[in-house]
């Protein structure tokens, strides 16, 4: 029996989110009195496996394991080899596809976006903030034998585990389920150049409310008046309006400036997790029901196209 962590990696290093999950897995393994096992899959898995601080580390190297179909096969094989009681992973886009597949294949429960997990009365219970973080749902699993279920964790839930002595690593024998696999067509790397928004004391967050790339001068001017930078939501980046490197949230960057002014941002949970620790949050949104108002320190219900230019002028006038 064991706790199994699905480890993500890139360019030969373990993803920060996976180091956090490994830390949680380590604590859970001691509480349950079982070893911590890890799986590293995809190209370069063998090298990365040699750095993972778990008791046993399986690797499934090769292109086949770069896409979700191969990932599910590898994870199913690891569950079997490790006698896993629970599978833990970071709540990333790729692990969602892989662990979702595992849940379907093995008929086990899956709990997403959890922030902690404990071992209680022989079972695993994960805490999951729900309904825009208005309640914490404590969720366990119905299966008590074998693999009980899968838990995906919000980025930033745990302090990353220090890279300590790596465990013994071994190649995993993975049976091919014969599922049709996704064809990987390449990765357009996140632009690494430009400003590093994580270093800025003031961020003006711009969302889809801006209406189009042509209106971004509004937030750029406001950011300039405050000596800050522009940050964005996924909706803005996916639409091609602004650089990926400026995106804040679950899939983007985590920021904690002294001041975050959210302009035309609804405040979806996946955005919130990247900026909720900002010192002060101000929101401008025309929809009084927008979730952003639930966690803004100061919110104005109104039209950004009116308020933002006024705000910029008033700030400029103050500076004199």
């Amino acid at each position, binding site marked *: 029996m064991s706790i199994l962590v699905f480890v993500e990696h890139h360019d030969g290093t373990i*993803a920060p*989110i996976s180091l956090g999950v490994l830390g949680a897995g380590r604590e859970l393994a001691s509480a349950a009195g079982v070893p911590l096992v890890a799986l590293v899959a995809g190209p370069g898995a063998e090298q990365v496996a040699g750095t993972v601080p778990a008791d046993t580390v399986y690797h499934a190297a090769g292109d086949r394991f770069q*896409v*979700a*179909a191969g990932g*599910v096969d590898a994870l199913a094989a690891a569950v079997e080899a490790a006698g896993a009681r629970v599978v833990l992973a970071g709540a*990333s*886009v*790729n692990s*969602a*596809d892989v*662990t*979702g*597949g*595992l*849940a*379907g294949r093995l008929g086990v*429960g899956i709990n*997403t*976006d959890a922030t902690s997990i404990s071992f209680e009365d022989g079972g695993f219970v994960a*805490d999951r903030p*729900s*309904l*825009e973080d*208005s*309640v914490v*749902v*404590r969720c*366990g*699993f*119905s299966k008590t034998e074998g693999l009980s279920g899968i838990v995906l964790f919000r980025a930033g839930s745990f302090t990353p585990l220090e890279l300590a002595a790596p465990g013994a690593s071994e190649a995993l024998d993975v049976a091919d389920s014969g*599922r*049709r696999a996704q*064809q*990987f*067509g*390449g*990765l*357009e790397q*996140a632009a690494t150049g430009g400003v590093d928004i994580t270093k800025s004391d003031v961020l003006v967050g711009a969302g889809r409310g801006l209406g189009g790339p042509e209106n971004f001068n509004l937030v750029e001017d406001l950011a300039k008046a405050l000596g800050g930078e522009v940050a964005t939501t*996924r909706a803005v*980046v*996916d*639409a091609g309006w602004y650089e990926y490197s400026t995106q804040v949230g679950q*899939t983007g960057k985590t920021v904690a400036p002294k*001041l975050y002014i959210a302009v035309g941002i609804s405040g979806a949970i996946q955005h919130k997790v990247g900026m909720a620790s900002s010192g002060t949050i*101000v929101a401008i949104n025309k929809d*009084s*029901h927008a979730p952003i*108002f639930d966690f803004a*320190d*100061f*919110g*104005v*219900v*109104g*039209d950004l196209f*009116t308020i933002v230019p*006024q705000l910029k002028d008033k*700030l400029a006038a103050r500076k004199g």
Partner: protein
Amino acid sequence: MKIAVCVKEVPGANVPRRHDDATKRLVRDGDQVLNSYDAHAMEAALQLKEAGGDAADATITAICMGPEGASRTLQKALALGADDAVLVTDPALEGSDILATARALAAAIVKQGPFDLVLLGQQASDSDCWVLPGVLAELLEAPVATQASKLELSGGNASLERQTELGYEKLSLSLPAVVSVSDAINTPRYPALKAIMAAKKKPLEKLGVADLGLDAATVGTAGSGTIVVAFAPPPAKAGGVKIEDDGSGADKIVEFLAGRNLV
């Protein structure tokens, strides 16, 4: 070609959302609406069809698992342009978690199929899970990709782009495939009044657990893999101030910032 679009009914933005302590389920009173993220999946299906090529002759089926009343949400999908709709509804389905929901949807997709493409929204606004497509795809033995921000069909493949933690990934999936779409993939259209009227005449079929050949023990609370143990209050947080802009909004923001020495 046949395209299925999974649409969920969720509480409207104006409905205070809470769980029932006894049933541990989300209370579904008040206005219920089409999950706004699923309008993007409907729109993606319509745009694929309008783009011609492989999907030129596609029929679009909207599928929802939910209570009887969720037929309203399917009417909305029909008004948006679905050709027909299926409501998967049965008391035995109550309390379904992701696994049980995926089983019910998979059974409906197999029964009404075969479908070449199953589209879903990026997430349900009430459960915020976004992992259901992966579970569903496995049950259908089809390749999956979630969070597509660009999607095309050609030569029996779905080619797509999606954002991951590392940048934008390009994937190609052979059909039949399961794809969930990001809310930035398109801007959903508003149905014309004529379409809303026409929707009332489109086929809307209701299917229960028996119709789908499902064992009731594999769905609903009984078939769920997760159990809600308890609810706990969220970490306490100081409440903020919210004002309506009456022309002085910008001034009030400056005052607030000055009060905190931020300007």
